[in-house]
């Protein structure tokens, strides 16, 4: 798909990234990448499977969630300039974006609402917190804003299976 020149360009990008100090957004993104793998946990007593995969030659991270129902949202993470962004391809049909910020101790990544495309008639996801406990254990707290302004959330306690 890409020419040799283009491949060379990608290499140059990589070298540049190493040569200069990593941005906070890049550090946060790299932290998120440590979650790559498959995870299992429960939500309200029911099993939940989460997969995180580094894609696009390291430029994106894909998060997939599957419970015992039809829900199967996709969330994409990427660095956008000096920001770490996520775009949540929601089961309700819209696509909220959030900006991530790492805690001073590096153990928590909090994503705050930026904007949303698509209808919000049924609400939208608005806030997510990833808590890194150890290499095989993390939690995710997702918060959904209902159309009436109320919020609902859920804490996913996840153990690595691969």
């Amino acid at each position, binding site marked *: 798909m890409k020419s040799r020149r283009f*491949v060379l360009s990608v290499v140059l990008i990589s070298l540049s990234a190493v040569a200069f100090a990593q941005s906070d957004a890049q550090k946060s993104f790299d932290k998120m990448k440590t979650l790559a793998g498959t995870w299992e946990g429960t939500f309200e007593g029911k099993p939940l499977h989460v997969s995180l995969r580094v894609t*696009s*030659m390291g430029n994106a991270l894909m998060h997939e969630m599957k419970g015992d129902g039809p*829900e199967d949202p996709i969330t994409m993470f990427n660095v956008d300039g000096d920001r770490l962004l996520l775009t949540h*391809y929601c089961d*309700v049909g819209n696509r909220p974006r959030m900006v991530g910020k790492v805690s001073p101790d590096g153990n928590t990544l909090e994503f705050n609402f930026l904007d949303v495309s698509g209808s919000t008639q049924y609400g939208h996801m608005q806030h997510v917190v990833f808590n890194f406990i150890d290499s095989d254990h993390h939690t995710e707290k997702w918060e959904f804003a209902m159309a009436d302004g109320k919020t609902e959330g859920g804490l996913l306690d996840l153990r690595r299976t691969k």
Partner: protein
Amino acid sequence: MKRIAISAVFVLIAATAFAADAAATQSDVQKSFDKLKTLAGSWEGRVTTLPPQADVEGKLMQVSLRVTSMGNAIVHEATITGRPDDPITMLYLDGDRLLLTHYCDAGNRPRMVGTMSPEGKTVEFEFLDVAGSTQYGHMHHAVFTFLDANHHIEDWTYMEPGDKPVHAHFDLQRTK
């Protein structure tokens, strides 16, 4: 989280209630999106390029298309045997538009708007905008051509700096 599921159920109920109307007045973009959903599955085929790119020409590639987000999105994944390329493309409806966002190996994220041909055999995506650096170019155009249930073609155009197009042609047969 329970409300999230409930919200999704509301969407389904609404969809069912208005199914009859929807069938009669289904928008062109919804038809295009539904057409793309028929590609869900695993595909394999050879890559040809113009101008020829020695590093990928004739190589075997794998494409997966998956309907996700309770039918609201399609995930397109592409890999080439022996190469690190693994871009993700998300396809979805945005109001009265069919959009794709291409999470490119080059690190940027172009969006394109899709239109189905009158006879329904192709869906063509035209460049809309791009997020992220385009210093090394960006994906610019894509066409999906539907041949039969087990055979489709994808034509992707990458725009190198200086607006030099590189065209990649994927002739894909369904493997699953």
